[in-house]
């Protein structure tokens, strides 16, 4: 059963189409890779799905709900959460408080929220940093914090926007393992990534965007052998 | 009908001076994202400068801007270098308080030095006017309007045709990116504040012959400058010019048809409406 359906979604800014007529589906528990060159409209699509921009045309169906026009907070409450390409830690709050903010999406009790937060912090491996100010963390840990925070909102679908960007290979490897662990728990994930090796390794299915349009869709092997993709994207790099 | 055209014309002319105040603030805001609460006080300093150049050295106020502009530029650059530059990365409310503090220091220093007396600068043309189609047009306002146009044109040329101007605009577009491109952002800020100060000072010089001068005169104009800047689009020079003229007209015409006591209300309501429906201002590009 499809957990997320994107149907003919377009987004225009002024006269420019950032996304045009994009359609695909995601099934429960899968990891979907979303790739494409810079400016292909990946982040715009994320913003449309999570409610930051209303799509200009088309429909987004999540878990049976029509999402168009819903605000990000409502989207999050329905069980969809995102991270940011450029991390957005709540810098003057410490790690546990950051994650608690996410957890409070499902509870009104600080006590319960703290328990959830501590659990998620352990999942991402920030256990030793609980009391540190978010602003003082290095980039790798900030990315993990971001993941812990969205996990704390107890999502069904997670959208990860370049969680490996700017990380060294060892850190990337940790994140990859984390993504696979999350898959184990049964959370569906959509991942934007530039690191091709990583994306090929983790994705069940890949959608390629180019100039706002869907260029190809398929499993990693199909994408690698797709001529259009190779020409437009892989070859061009 | 005569009343309408009369108020329209005086609104446009006084709007010219407002425009200068607004342009100064818009450059400062554009480059540094700082709301300068001392802007009116800079204008006040310009007024006193003009006053003393006139009474002591007998330099005509409209001529004196040749002296006022560079002096105010240096003064603004000094303020930027030693004060504002130090809070560029601070919290916005700290920046606001700093400019408020600087404003207090300026107005009270002037008060201690020159007492808080009203001063009137009277030139031979202070109240002269001429008639066109039965409408009276104030000569000094017309001259200052013309000077405003010339200054705006020069400024435009500077910002769009010179390297420094380009660099300032780049800084206003995106501080971080400008820095990466090798632009000396701090220096651009100094130039921007200097420009802002000299424009405020010039505005002071231009209204000095038709207005009166005292140490606390700035506060009225600070608020006006905010309105104009937002109206035109923060960072947009043409926008600020239009905003200034628009506020001049709204005050003048609104004063007639809704009541002069209410004109401040009208001005601020217009301001809020623009903020809400087009936060980027009439001519601004959207960004926060």
């Amino acid at each position, binding site marked *: 059963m499809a957990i997320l359906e994107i149907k003919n979604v377009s987004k225009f800014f002024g006269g420019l189409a950032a996304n045009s007529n994009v359609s695909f589906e995601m099934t429960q528990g899968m990891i979907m890779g979303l790739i494409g060159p810079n400016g292909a409209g990946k982040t715009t699509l994320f913003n449309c799905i*999570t409610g*930051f921009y209303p799509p200009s045309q088309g429909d987004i169906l999540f878990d049976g709900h029509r999402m168009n026009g819903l*605000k*990000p*907070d*409502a989207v*999050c409450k329905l069980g969809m959460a*995102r991270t*940011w390409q450029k991390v*957005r*830690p*709540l*810098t*003057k*709050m410490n790690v546990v408080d950051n994650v608690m*903010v*996410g957890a*409070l*999406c499902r509870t*009104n009790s*600080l006590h319960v*929220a703290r328990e959830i937060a501590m659990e998620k912090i352990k999942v991402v491996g920030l256990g030793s940093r609980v009391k540190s100010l978010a602003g003082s963390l290095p980039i790798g840990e900030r990315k993990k914090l971001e993941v812990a925070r969205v996990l704390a*909102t107890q999502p069904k679908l997670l959208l990860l926007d370049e969680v490996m960007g700017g990380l060294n290979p060892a850190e990337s490897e940790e994140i990859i393992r984390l993504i696979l662990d999350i898959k184990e728990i049964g959370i569906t994930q959509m991942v934007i990534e530039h690191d091709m090796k990583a994306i090929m390794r983790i994705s069940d299915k890949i959608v390629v965007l180019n100039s706002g349009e869907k260029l190809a869709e398929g499993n990693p092997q199909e994408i690698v052998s797709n001529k259009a993709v190779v020409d437009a994207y892989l070859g061009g790099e | 009908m005569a009343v309408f055209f009369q108020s329209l014309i005086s609104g446009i002319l006084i709007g010219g001076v407002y425009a200068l105040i607004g342009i100064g603030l818009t450059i400062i*805001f554009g480059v540094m*994202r700082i*709301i300068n609460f001392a802007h009116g006080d800079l204008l006040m300093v310009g007024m006193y400068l003009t006053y003393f150049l006139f009474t002591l050295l007998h330099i005509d106020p409209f001529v004196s801007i040749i002296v006022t502009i560079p002096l105010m530029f240096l003064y603004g650059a000094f303020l930027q270098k030693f*004060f504002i530059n*130090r*809070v560029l990365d*601070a919290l*916005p*409310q*700290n920046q*606001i*308080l*700093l400019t*408020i*503090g600087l404003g*207090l*220091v300026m107005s*009270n*220093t002037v008060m*201690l030095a020159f007492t808080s007396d009203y001063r009137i600068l009277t030139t031979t043309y202070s109240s002269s006017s001429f008639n066109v189609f039965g409408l009276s047009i104030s000569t000094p306002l017309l001259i200052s309007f013309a000077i405003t146009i010339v200054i705006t044109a020069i400024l435009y040329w500077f910002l769009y045709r010179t390297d420094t101007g380009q660099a300032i605009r780049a800084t206003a577009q995106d501080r971080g990116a400008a820095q990466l491109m090798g632009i000396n952002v701090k220096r651009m800020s100094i130039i921007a504040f200097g420009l802002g100060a000299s424009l405020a000072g010039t505005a002071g010089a231009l209204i000095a012959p038709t207005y009166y001068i005292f140490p606390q005169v700035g506060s009225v104009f600070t*608020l006006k400058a*905010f*309105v104009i800047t937002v109206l035109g689009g*923060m960072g947009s020079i043409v926008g600020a010019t239009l905003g200034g003229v628009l506020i001049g007209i709204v005050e003048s015409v609104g004063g007639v048809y809704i*009541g002069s*006591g*209410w004109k*401040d*209300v009208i001005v*601020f*309501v217009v*301001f*809020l409406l623009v*903020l*809400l429906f087009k*936060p980027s201002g009439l001519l601004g590009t959207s960004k*926060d």
Partner: protein
Amino acid sequence: MRLFMHNMRGMSVFPVLLTVAAAAGLFLLPNFVESTYALHIMILIFISVIMGTGWNILGGYTGQYSVGHAAYFGIGAYTTLILMQYHHIAPWYGAWVGVVVAVAIALVVGSICFRLRGPYFTLASIAVAEIFRATALNLRLTNGAEGILITDIPPFKIGNTVITDFMSKVPFYYMGLVTLIIAIIVTRMVQNSKLGYYFQAIREDQDAAHSLGINPTAYKNAALAISVVFTSLAGSLYALYVGFIDPSTVLALDLSVHIVMICIIGGIGTIWGPAIGAVILVPFSEALRSNMIAQALIDSGLISENSRIGSFLKDQLSHAHVLIYGILLVIVILYMPDGILGFARKLLTKRRKETI
């Protein structure tokens, strides 16, 4: 001290005791202090703390830097006095009507202005306050520029027992003190609740907060509402105490700036910041205003009153106090950007590092 500073959750015993002792001391103070001048200053401090604490919820915790809180101060002041003077409704009811009116207006203003961010919001808040000022200046309801003068305050009775007739400063002192304590308790409660977390999340990053299931407009409005309750009460208290209000005293930009200043000097986004700010700023500016420094120098015999410097200080310093105030403001912003509390904290951590 460390417990006190870093205490965000569960209170430890020492600061609780300290706070209770301080509160008790303040309650008993009027019995020992005969100087009504001191009481006057205390009342002004209380009013400043109340409005600062109110602003702090919105500005300090939620990061919405309003420079237009005079609007709500004025609404509280005007509602109370209009009801009392023209409709004979006792001020202890009027003040609550004022709160309701202020909150209602704030929610309308908030739902409009909170669509704006950063400096745009700040400017919009100034515009709103100016609209209120200019409107009050022109309305008959508010008696325009002439303002409203209290003829007398009805005595406060419970049953037939007169509790106070408001002839001395003491009732105002206690009204201020109680409101202040409630304001601080509310701040504590907010800080230790979901609201507090959400407010701070919005302050730190509105988009991130939004994506974590927080409706920013709703929570900003909640912060504004709480904030306005105290700002409005401070306005009512001021109006009753001073006995005269007009647009240029209770709706002025100066006042909005004063509110922000208290919080920044003390340290924003902390429970005690506004209180510390007010306790320092109010007596200090009063000492400057009343030329107490020069007087102290002369009285102490350091400088003779008849000497050149003495007469200069006595005559000129009273003209220069706003200048000195401005200079100090600039210095504080440049050297103590996190306010007194932040500065103290920095000093403490530094010293701890040195000792370790």
